[in-house]
């Protein structure tokens, strides 16, 4: 025992070897528990334990390809709505405390209230995905590995052009998992004055390309 003490740093000697081991174990338990809680709140079953999610967005999502498809590979709520990387994930989880507050306040506790807020909620999510270059889409859908010969005519034509224009998934793929809010599509009276969607900015680069082509 005396010989081991020679190698111990001063702070270990001060608090004792046993305490050091106990702290180490407590650290593992704490971190494990933290991670467990984080993962527990990152499950579809947790998301739809709130009726706000279950009655509205979850039921809409059940009709879409990310819920049911040929091969049964799914993208569940957190796959799209919670970042995978640790930093952004923490940020999003802290932001979610606001959602807990509004759950308690009952801000969207009926489908009518939810639909009244739908435009705002959708735009929040579009903004978030635009800002991170649709990272959650790209966790599975990688541009570089897209085989255009396997895509439909329309997709094979649009995708390369969109990437040249610097567009990101969410620019065009809005409302693919949930219903859209009222959108002003400039087709007469229908939804006049409602939210407009952009399909990405018309890039200045496109003009240059045209000029070069001439």
């Amino acid at each position, binding site marked *: 025992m005396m010989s081991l003490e020679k190698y111990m740093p001063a702070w270990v000697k001060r608090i004792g070897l046993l305490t050091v081991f106990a702290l180490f174990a407590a650290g593992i338990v704490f971190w494990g528990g933290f991670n467990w809680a984080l993962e527990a709140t990152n499950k579809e079953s947790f998301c739809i334990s709130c009726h706000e999610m279950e009655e509205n967005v979850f039921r809409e999502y059940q009709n879409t*390809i990310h819920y049911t498809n040929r091969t049964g590979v799914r993208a569940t709520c957190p796959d799209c709505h919670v970042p995978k990387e640790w930093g952004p994930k923490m940020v999003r989880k802290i932001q979610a405390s606001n959602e807990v507050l509004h759950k308690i306040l009952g801000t969207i506790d009926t489908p009518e209230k939810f639909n009244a807020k739908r435009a705002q909620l959708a735009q929040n999510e579009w903004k978030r995905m635009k800002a991170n270059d649709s990272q959650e889409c790209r966790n599975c859908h990688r541009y570089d590995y897209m085989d255009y010969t396997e895509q*439909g005519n329309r997709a094979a034509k649009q995708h390369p052009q969109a990437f040249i224009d610097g567009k990101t998934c969410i620019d065009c793929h809005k409302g693919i998992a949930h*219903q*859209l809010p*009222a*959108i002003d599509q*400039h087709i*007469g009276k*229908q939804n006049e004055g409602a939210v407009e969607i952009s*399909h990405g900015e018309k890039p200045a680069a496109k003009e240059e390309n045209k000029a070069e082509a001439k």
Partner: protein
Amino acid sequence: MRFIPALALAAAVLFSGFGAASAQEKVLSERGDVAIDQTSKVDMFRPEKDKEIIPRNFQKQPPLIPHSVKGYNITQNFNKCMDCHSKERAEETGATKVAKSHYLDREDKKLSNISPRRYFCMQCHVPQFDAKPLVENTYKPAAKKGE
């Protein structure tokens, strides 16, 4: 001969009517001899893959939809078809523009934008499925193509 669901349906209704009128024989439903509360065994139909524009079969035929429309909803909030086919979007997307006839109200008065009565695109424009016609169809257009 291309399969036109609406025509086939019209023919089916017509034929079933004849059958009932001409004889006492039992009229069989196209869904087979299955009780209404039971599920009929149907073939699985897949929407056809994207293809080039399908030529019309007769004058003023609403053009057929030459692509899959799976998951394309037309709701009060959003018309998925118009996301590409509207006048504003057609150039960028390369889709066929909505025809001028869709800008008329029922009195043939010209409107500045698409008439609300044209909102439900798939009432007239139908997607194509790899399905055999239920009944024979001998329809021939009255006029030659080229309107």
